[in-house]
């Protein structure tokens, strides 16, 4: 019986390790292949040896796509979106969790239902309105629709519910205004949750593809996913530069994975997992 358990335990570890291997492999591959050229990447066989094309891939990217500018575009859009979305969803979440007001249920239900509507529904009108306002190929055009993040609003409402109402009442007796209570008491207490929400918005913004694909047509406004797409399309008729793709992946995906892992360890680990999308 005892030995049976031990055998089973080892087998479980083995299966879990196989799973972990399968999930890590592509990331390891990105790093290795970012140092390889096409001949090594698609030359047949299994090749996990570091090559010496890292600098060549970098030069190619800098020349062809102004890669530094692309990274800066992605950072600006993600940082501004994160700040605005986190602030607005913290405030609305707090309002929905801690106050009774006319239309609060309606607002909450509308938010929940709208999360079920495919993004494709809003895409065309958004593009139409944005292009009429001359906001294609601008940061503003990408950032505006990210502010009302329904997922973040929902998450922040869930978190803010745990914030004790008694603290608010005590502060009111001391004569604090509602805004002061929010700024000086609620926000500091909710900070870990706010950071968690912010991290998710940041990663979502960094990864978003369809909307920027529609809105950003000029090469100097591209974000990282658009560069990946552009390399895979290879409209010039040249063969796809896989080394270039892998370089982009190694420099844009791996940092995000590290941010996730640090955030995971530091902040509410389970929340960061449970609350995705």
């Amino acid at each position, binding site marked *: 019986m005892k030995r049976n358990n031990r055998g089973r335990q080892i087998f479980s570890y083995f299966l879990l390790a196989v799973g972990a291997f399968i999930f890590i492999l592509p990331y390891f591959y990105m790093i290795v292949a970012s140092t390889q050229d096409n001949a090594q990447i698609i030359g047949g066989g299994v090749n996990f040896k570091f090559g010496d094309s890292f600098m060549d891939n970098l030069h190619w990217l800098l020349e062809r796509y102004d890669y530094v500018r692309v990274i800066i575009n992605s950072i600006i859009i993600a940082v501004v979106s994160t700040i605005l979305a986190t602030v607005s969803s913290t405030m*609305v979440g707090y309002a929905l969790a801690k106050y009774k007001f006319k239309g609060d249920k309606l607002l909450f239900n509308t938010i929940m239902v709208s999360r079920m509507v495919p993004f494709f529904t809003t895409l*065309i009108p958004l593009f139409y309105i944005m292009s009429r306002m001359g906001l294609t190929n601008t940061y503003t055009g990408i950032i505006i629709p990210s502010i009302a993040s329904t997922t973040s609003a929902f998450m922040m409402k869930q978190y803010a519910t745990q914030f004790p109402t008694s603290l608010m009442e005590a502060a009111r007796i001391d004569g604090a205004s509602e805004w002061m209570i929010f700024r000086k008491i609620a926000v500091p207490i909710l900070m870990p949750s706010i950071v968690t929400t912010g991290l998710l918005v940041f990663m979502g913004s960094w990864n978003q593809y369809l909307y920027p694909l529609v809105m950003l047509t000029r090469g100097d406004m591209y974000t990282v996913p658009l560069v990946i797409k552009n390399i895979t399309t290879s409209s010039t008729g040249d063969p796809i530069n896989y080394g270039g793709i892998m370089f982009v992946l190694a420099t844009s995906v791996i940092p995000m994975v590290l941010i996730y892992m640090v955030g995971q360890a530091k902040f509410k680990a389970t929340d960061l997992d449970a609350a995705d999308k």
Partner: protein
Amino acid sequence: MKKVKRKPGLKTYAKSAYGFAAPFFVFFVVTILIPVIVSFVFSFMQIGSTFKFVGLQNYIDIFKDPLFLQSYINIFIIMIGYIPITMLLSLFFAVLLNSPHIHGKGFFRTIYYIPTVTSTVAVASVFMTFFNPTGLFNGVLEMLGLPEVQWLTDPVWLRVSMIITEIWINIGYNAVLFLAGLQSIPRMVYESAEIDGAGKIKQFFTITIPLMKPVILMATVLATINGLGSFNIPNIFFGTSNGPENAAIVVGVNLYKTSFELVDFGKASAIAWTMVFVAAVLSFVQFKFGGNDDEAE
């Protein structure tokens, strides 16, 4: 202000609540609510330099278009291919992780979840490299002495390729979701079953599955809605091409093509609303047939 101090009921502070809700509300209305309504109106219009109301014409047109129907068939084949396998594997890993004798749960969970925080465009481009005729996957097949596969150019295998990629992406998210569900099942339930002589397999089917049903159902509905709107992976694999024998075109890509290549916003909006309709019907059916009586709502 004085009145406020005397009556500390929640309602009294409604004015502040509106203030807190306002920034989100404004952007919610402008970037979500209004676009949804506009999209619905667009679906009944012909949009060019002018707007013309055409009634149901867009819907009639898309249903006459064989490519539209094929795009639904393709995405359904892909979803039927990956959603059940994803759910089974996710549950499998979640059960392994939930076992009391396993250490390093947090480590494995973090690893399994990484694909969820990775851009699907990035994932698709790595897999595209693997699927290259002389890429990693065929290299492995060659090592094993198996025949090579035309991963992205054969009408059957290209669907298998999409299914493999989707499974890889989706396992982690669902495994973590299921793990949270499993952790809420009291260990005592299993212990008493063990005393009654029920083996692990029997326990799995008589305890785990029934108690996990609502979570699995919810995950399946979410996966279906997300799968229906699939765009990034097929777009990286095949661009906007229909693929051999129209096997690669999915609804999302067809919609994108209709709106941004053919610039027919009316028709594209109509396609978007068929997606809303199909998603609603599928969710309803899944809740109806998957749920217990009290969860059917």
